[in-house]
């Protein structure tokens, strides 16, 4: 069994109209190498499910997003994601805007194969008012509490960037925070991971095995992608690339800025992308942000 494939192979599995979930959080450990491959493709009408960072912005800029299922889009140190903002303000997006807790709870419901999980997050806000398809449910017990039935958020595909993987699809997330990638992976029919390092077969100690957060049977493909989260951070390997993010942010204020960004960074492929960013020597040494 060998799940190794290229980012091109991954994107060849995707179809217009698919619902795609992304791991990571904002400018942290996003599968950007695969995102760039999507940007190079003709894919369109995607439903994007994410704790959004530049993957959301870029896919919106490229006109590939029909619907966004999200709690936010941000670049953190740059709070406002500029291309999300631009496309959001154009009225072009369908939206299911959810509390962060609702978002992960819906993914958990999908992974557990239950139709909903109850929460009170979202009640008494415009989340429920704007999304009448979200139903309430009443506790069958004496308390009779009215809760929100967060529906399962089923994904066609999950895209996740990890620190290490093997050819069987075992993965390790070694940074301080695993975020919610395990829930994203379990909610999908197929999870594709990109990894800083790929081994043939893991032979882990007990201490190392703890970094495995989801099951290999979820993983249909493994892409070797050193610096594959750039320009997002990949704890503990490298931090985000503030210089590149600023360049990307500036593109939203320029006429033809997105095409210029695509021409400069994306269209010529990942190797050229790395060259343009100082190569993995520079990209792999970007300092981790300090808070």
């Amino acid at each position: 069994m060998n799940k190794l494939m290229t980012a091109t192979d991954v994107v060849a599995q995707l179809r217009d109209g698919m619902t795609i979930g992304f791991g990571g959080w904002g400018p942290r450990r996003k599968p950007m190498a695969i995102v760039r491959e999507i940007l190079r493709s003709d894919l369109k009408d995607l439903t994007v499910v994410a704790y959004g960072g530049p993957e959301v912005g870029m896919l919106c800029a490229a006109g590939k997003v029909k619907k966004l299922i999200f709690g936010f889009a941000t670049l953190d140190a740059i709070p406002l994601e500029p291309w999300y903002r631009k496309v959001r303000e154009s009225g072009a997006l369908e939206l299911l805007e959810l509390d962060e807790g609702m978002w992960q709870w819906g993914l958990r419901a999908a992974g557990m194969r239950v139709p909903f999980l109850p929460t009170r997050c979202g009640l008494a806000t415009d989340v429920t008012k704007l999304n009448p398809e979200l139903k309430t449910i009443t506790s069958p017990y004496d308390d009779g509490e009215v809760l929100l039935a967060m529906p399962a958020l089923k994904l066609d595909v999950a895209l996740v960037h990890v620190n290490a993987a093997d050819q069987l699809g075992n993965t390790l997330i070694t940074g301080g925070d695993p975020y919610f990638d395990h829930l994203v992976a379990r909610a999908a029919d197929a999870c594709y991971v990109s990894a800083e390092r790929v081994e043939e077969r893991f032979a882990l100690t007990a201490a190392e095995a703890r970094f495995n957060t989801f099951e290999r049977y979820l993983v249909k493909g493994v892409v070797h992608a050193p610096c594959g989260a750039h320009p997002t951070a990949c704890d503990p390997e490298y931090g985000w690339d503030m210089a590149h993010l600023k360049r990307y942010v500036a593109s939203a204020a320029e006429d033809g800025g997105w095409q210029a960004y695509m021409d400069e960074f994306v269209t010529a492929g990942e190797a050229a992308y790395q060259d343009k960013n100082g190569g993995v020597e520079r990209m792999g040494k970007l300092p981790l942000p300090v808070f």
Partner: protein
Amino acid sequence: MSDKVEFSLAELMIVAASEAWRGDGEVLASGIGVIPRLGASLAKLTHGPGLLMTDSECFLVEDPIPLGPRGDFVPKYSGSMNFERVFECVWGGQRHAMIGPTQIDRYGQTNLSVIGDYKKPKAAILGVRGLPGNSINHINSFIVPSHSKRVFVEGEVDMVSGVGYNPARWEPGMRQDFMAIRHIVTDLCVMDFEGPEHAIRVRSLHPGVSFDEVQEKTGFPLLKAPNLGETPHPTAAQLTLIRRLDPHDLRAAQLKGNPPGMRAAA
């Protein structure tokens, strides 16, 4: 006789922010942004040693971490608080967060999503983020660096992201008893929701600020707290702690022009 110490308005607001957590015991104190984070850190170092606090990433610390670059200093941790764990704190209710919403209305409802029409907004901001879940599950306070009618809007906020005390939003069977809004700290005053039916009251005015100015810059009627006085000035001890917590003076960049705590005469 009190020490005559000089302090910036940001420092006054940091001390005011730290008061929000007074008496909370062991809750996760989440100060989002420079002034709230310094306020929470100051609270933990003074009246609230039981507060839980993170390093702003994914670990708990007992000694609040100074802001900004810290050379080779590697903190020691007391536990784990990754994002998944934060939700356990939220849903369990043992948290008090201070955030900076884009809009706040008279009910304490907050907006962080969009200004204007939801479908085609005038300005997109961040999204509802964790506001719906935080606001219905635990104590919250707000920070407002620039008190104006653009923040304190007349009707309801444009997109209700965080719940408040608006009876029209709460349907029978929904539990409203886990929410509580404690303080709003602005560049003009400190407010709370302790008026009748949770009406907003001004509880202290910053030096040189009048109630009328505050009311003028607010889109809804405000009450005065019975003991309305001046926002306490930072003490020398508090300023020493603040300086230690913010060695790179990030607090000086939080308010336009970094005005002094004692307003210059007009």
